[in-house]
């Protein structure tokens, strides 16, 4: 045990906490040829909030999975309280006091909050449910994590569910809590509450590791910031030294360091550079050729100028296990982006399913490009129709077990088929061109969907959907989990696509809605609280309240 190396390249620790709780020493992890983590040294101190910044595929998730015991490092060691530990499973990490709040909650909906906390608890046989409720109530009061211990998890909002996840860790007396993009599913108010709870946990001596792409948040909450790039830690800052937002973003992307490589390429597609985008799109266009307008028997007017491209009137649908949709009406014309803004779980999913023809309507009507929704999905024009960028990239937008060509073909297959046969050679060429032009990493078209990071998968999906020249686009939280560069790229592509189509942007991120949309429709419990122009300052001010359901304030 004496072989603990004394060298560390992390930032000096003010406040005199002598020894970090956890130290990662020279952690490296390889997936085949891919270097996910390389020689990472990181110290996590007691009572500190550490933010981990990095673009997609930088290795943050891998690193934290190693710390949480889900993956084993190829090289390097984890030192907890000065002692070398090996985590073979998340359980080992839990025993060492390390726990993680994942982006996708691991809760059982049909059970109560207390039961969920009790589950997997060490020595759970000896703890009575009543005692557990008491203990959960006490903990939630202590850290300001308000939640009713007796409530059924299925009935809770996303924010409350996250609190249950945190309580699970606190109950196990975890000392190191890792948060993977915790604010993605929260309203601004809920995010504030979470930050307060995090502060309180830090005051009690817990260590917090916080993964986020939202720079303002990181600056607001963290004591220390570490930046990962291409699997390596490239910068460590303590609060006092942190440069401004722009500088942070630059360091994360490494743009000033690596000129002319793929990262710089993606940075070119920032707002205002649509010309260069058109230039790079040549290859794909050459392969695809001119897409003739689809001819559909007896439907000559299908591609006639339709105004609006998507319209809903009085749409109602009920759902067994969710709020459903109640009397939703709006219309989107070509050249417009309407943001459907709301916290996840307020009927957005049902509404999108209804538009995609996968959920029946109780009443009301939906029309896509001048056709009733059922009729539209029967025709399914190969292009010039509706493009869909789903929120769930791995579950809905792609097939993780298939390669990128097959994933590319998933929605574009009709553009590559003739007499019922697929032209796979052309599809391969098109996929390669798309990978090049949309800067998808790794660039091997034979890679499986599951081998791509979320951001790179999203680039492929966005490219694939835009390829079909859609005249109506549904984009569901298109930048969730993406780093700044990828986010800007997706935004820019949507802005360009807007010129030829109408876009329904379903998002929970106010800043995204304000950055892109022309109109905002705030949804709460399946109802549109209000629909207004993004210019309407007074209403924009009250968005947070509207999202939380303060209907009276909507005016």
């Amino acid at each position, binding site marked *: *045990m004496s072989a603990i190396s004394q060298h560390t390249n992390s930032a000096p620790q003010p406040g005199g906490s002598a020894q970090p709780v956890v130290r990662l020493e020279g952690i490296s992890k390889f997936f085949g040829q891919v270097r996910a983590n390389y020689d990472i040294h990181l110290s996590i101190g007691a009572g500190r909030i550490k933010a981990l910044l990095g673009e997609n595929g930088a290795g943050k998730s891998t690193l934290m999975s190693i710390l949480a015991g889900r993956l084993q490092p190829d090289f390097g060691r984890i030192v907890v309280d000065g002692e070398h530990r090996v985590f073979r499973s998340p359980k080992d990490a839990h025993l060492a006091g390390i726990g993680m709040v994942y982006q996708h909650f691991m809760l059982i909906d049909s059970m109560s909050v207390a039961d969920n906390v009790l589950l997997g608890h060490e020595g759970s046989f000896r703890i009575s449910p009543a005692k557990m409720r008491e203990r959960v109530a006490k903990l939630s009061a202590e850290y300001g994590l308000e939640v009713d211990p007796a409530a059924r998890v299925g009935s809770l909002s996303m924010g409350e569910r996250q609190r249950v996840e945190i309580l699970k860790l606190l109950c196990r007396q975890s000392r190191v809590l890792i948060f993977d993009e915790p604010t993605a599913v929260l309203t601004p108010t809920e995010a504030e509450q979470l930050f307060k709870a995090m502060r309180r946990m830090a005051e009690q001596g817990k260590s917090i590791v916080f993964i986020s792409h939202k720079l303002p948040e990181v600056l607001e909450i963290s004591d220390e910031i570490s930046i990962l790039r291409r699997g390596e830690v490239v910068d460590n800052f303590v609060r006092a030294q942190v440069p401004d937002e722009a500088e942070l973003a630059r360091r994360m992307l490494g743009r000033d360091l690596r000129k002319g490589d793929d990262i710089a390429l993606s940075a070119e597609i920032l707002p205002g550079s649509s010309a260069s985008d058109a230039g790079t799109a040549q290859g794909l266009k050459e392969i695809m050729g001119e897409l003739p307008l689809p001819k559909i028997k007896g439907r000559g007017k299908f591609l006639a100028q339709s105004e609006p491209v998507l319209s809903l009137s009085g749409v109602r649908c009920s759902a067994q296990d969710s709020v459903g949709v109640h009397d939703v009406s709006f219309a989107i014309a070509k050249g417009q982006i309407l943001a459907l803004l709301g916290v996840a779980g307020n009927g957005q999913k049902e509404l999108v399913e209804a538009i995609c023809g996968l959920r029946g309507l109780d009443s009301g009507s939906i029309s896509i490009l001048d056709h009733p929704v059922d009729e539209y999905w029967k025709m399914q024009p190969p292009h010039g129709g509706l493009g869909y960028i789903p929120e769930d990239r791995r579950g809905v937008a792609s097939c993780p077990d298939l390669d990128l060509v097959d994933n590319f073909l998933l929605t574009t297959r009709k553009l590559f088929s003739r007499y019922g046969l697929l032209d796979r050679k052309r599809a391969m060429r098109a996929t390669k061109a798309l990978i090049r032009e949309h800067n998808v990493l790794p660039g091997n078209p034979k890679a499986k969907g599951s081998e791509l990071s979320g951001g790179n998968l999203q680039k492929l999906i966005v490219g694939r959907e835009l390829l079909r020249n859609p005249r109506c686009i549904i984009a569901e939280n298109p930048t969730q989990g993406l780093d700044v560069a990828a986010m800007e790229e997706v935004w820019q592509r949507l802005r360009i696509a807007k010129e030829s189509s109408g876009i329904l942007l379903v998002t929970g991120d106010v800043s995204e809605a304000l950055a892109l949309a022309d109109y905002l429709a705030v949804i709460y419990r399946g109802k549109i609280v209000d629909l207004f122009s993004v210019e309407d300052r007074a209403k924009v001010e009250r968005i947070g309240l509207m999202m939380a359901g303060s209907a009276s304030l909507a005016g």
Partner: protein
Amino acid sequence: MSGWRIVSRTEPREWGSVVIFAVAFALSLLICALLLAVQGKDGLGGIGLLLSGGFGHLYSYGETLLKAIPIFLCSLGVALCFRLQVWNIGAEGQYVIGTLGGCWFALSFPGLPVWLMMPGMLASAMLAGGLWAAVAAVLRQRWGMNEIISTLMLNYIGIEILKHLIYGPWKDPAGMNFPVSPYFAESAIIGPVWNPDFWTGIGLSDGIVDTLAQLFGRAHWGILSCLIAGALCSFFLRKGMRGFEITAAGSNAKAARFAGIPYSRLVVLVMFVCGALAGLAGMQETSATLNRLEPHIVVGYGYTAVVVAWLAKLRTMRIAFFAFILAGLRVGVENLQLELQISSSFANTLEGIILITVLAGQFFNDYAIRRKPRQSVPGAGV
């Protein structure tokens, strides 16, 4: 704590998987030897008999090939369903109903010339088998009935229908009251591939003719349908639009629905194709080997097909390989029955043991067992 740990492999094995299969296969045969020994028989000698019966002689290949034909066709269809994650275990019933469809045609129009009889008989077998399978598909898509249950139950119903016909309306009046149909007309009988008269006629030497006669034995022209069906299947799965849709929907049904892939139609399609292939297999087997309808047509090829599909991981070429192996073992078990007086159900036991050991062996394709690094041991124990 032991000094070993299980780690997941990041790089797939190459030739290693062949070695793993060979070891697992040998292990399953050893287990079977043990089972024979428990019954007081000569275990290893029995395994020798088993293997020599299926693969040991020139003439065993003919018999093995004969049994491999229906197993391959059924397995091809089953694999197609499994690819879409539709768990059709009803190839057995589809085989029976398909045979009945073909027999109906052969018995109803005995006077037809061969060029009308053959296509008509086989098409009506495929149609009957396909429709029978489609029943389960519709039950699944329309009313959410679990296809595992429905296809299994339809197997029993199919066999009952066979019994009803053979003991009732289709019984041969001249058949001494045995439950058999009248013999088919000459035009409805599929001949053996190896017809010495034909081949000597085109100038092959006697020695070759003789060897080949032994090699092909009773194997019939159904082998041609295997080649065609196998080629079409792999072609459409690789190049065809529907094939792609099946692969995609099997990989992620939800993504497929959102991408506008007609999922329900695909389920009906794969079930129909599977039923048609099973029906074709049944009719060819009946026509070529029995020349009439008998209750003996039900010998469990439809279940063996499921085993083959799994062993082959749904790949067409491997299906051919495993169909041949399992057919050979079936032939070998017949040998064993004669020599050692083993019950015929030993064939099923054998299939089950092979499936379990080979599938368990596939664990080593994805994981490796490595010795834990020495330095980590002290820390882990604390």
